[in-house]
Each structure stands twice: as C-alpha cells, then as structure tokens.
C-alpha cells in the first residue's frame, strides 16, 4: 500500500510487504533531509538521510528517494516487519546558512499486521 504521508497519516501493511511513506516539503532551499522513526514513549530515531545533490540513497531495508522538482521525499521499507510499526517523520534542514535545526512534518503512523 501507499501513503501520501501528510495527507493520509496512517498506513497499514501486511508483514512482509513493502511500505512506502511519502512526504512533501515546502522550502526549495532545503538541502538536507532525514527520516526518523518514533516509537511510542521514545524519542525520534535516525533512519536514513539524503542531501539535495542526490536523488536516491539506500540503507538496510530502507531507501529514500528525493524529487527536488516536485519537492517530494519518500521512504521505502522492504519486507516490513512488526518492529517497523511506529510513526515516521520526515525532517528538513533549510540551507547551508542555517545552524541546522530540523523542520519536521506531521508524521505517518505505520501499522504492520502479522
């Protein structure tokens, strides 16, 4: 299944399926993007990042895609597991000149059905 991220805040997938979480960002000057995972009662946990000079970056079971033309970011999780259930936030940092505080989106809740 797919989510449009900020416009559809919940995503439910079957264990073993791939998940795609989407995020739109607003500032064309943003040049560093991070995906965080937040489990209930915990702080955000770094998943993967990407800089604006790239359009794709892969980690372990996760891939981030960046489309600067339409200011869109996506997180793909392969073979989703129950432990992936959490809220996922995209965050951006606006420009080299900023000191680097993160601007977070509202998040997408991912629920994985066993």
């Amino acid at each position, binding site marked *: 299944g797919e989510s449009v991220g900020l416009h559809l805040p919940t995503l439910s997938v079957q264990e073993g399926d791939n998940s795609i979480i989407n995020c739109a960002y607003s500032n064309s000057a943003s*040049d*560093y993007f*991070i995906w*965080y995972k937040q489990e209930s*009662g*915990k*702080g*955000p*946990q*770094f998943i993967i*990042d990407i*800089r604006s000079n790239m359009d794709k970056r892969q980690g372990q079971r996760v891939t981030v895609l960046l489309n600067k033309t339409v200011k869109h970011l996506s997180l793909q999780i392969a073979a989703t597991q129950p432990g992936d259930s959490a809220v996922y*936030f995209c*965050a951006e*940092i606006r420009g*080299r000149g*900023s*000191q*680097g*505080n*993160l*601007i*977070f*989106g*509202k*998040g997408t809740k991912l629920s994985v059905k066993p």
Partner: protein
Amino acid sequence: GAGVSQSPRYKVAKRGQDVALRCDPISGHVSLFWYQQALGQGPEFLTYFQNEAQLDKSGLPSDRFFAERPEGSVSTLKIQRTQQEDSAVYLCASSLGVYQETQYFGPGTRLLVL
C-alpha cells in the same frame, strides 16, 4: 554515555510552578537542540546551542522559557510559571558538529501541567 539522556522522564506540575528539564548530550557533541512535541505532532524547534553559546532561541514560545548550557555539555530547559499549554514532550538532540549533521535524540521529558 552511549546516547542522549534526559531527566526526569515524566513531570507533573501544578499551573504556576517552575520546572527544570535536564539533557545530557552525547559526549563530545558540539551542537545541542531542544524541541517541543505536542501530542500527535512532529517536534518543533525551541533553541540551539553550539558549545556553551546559545545561537538561536527563536523557537522559545515565551519569556517564561529559558535554556542554558553553561559548560558546553549538559543543558537545562527551565519553564517558569507553567501553564496548561506547556504540556508536551520536550526532546533534546545533539550532533557532533555544526551544520547539517545528523541529530540524535533523547527519550524526552513528558510534562503535564494540571
């Protein structure tokens, strides 16, 4: 320590009471950020320190909020005369350097003002 730690994890305050929230960043991390996270929302930036210097406090919601990092390591966020709208999770994050560095978050302090 191995990660960012925060204390207390939970704080219940009566309206009008002063509170102090502590953050122990990862050892050697230059940058320290405070964020506020309302229920169901993404974290929002409050303030930023580079070593002991508070370089940005533009996100502090009122002059009742005060933060310090006197020796460039541990930081304290103080809220005076707490109000019900201050109820939120307060997150601390640190990063090794400055500018577009990965930020590592603590577990947060959940503040409830009655």
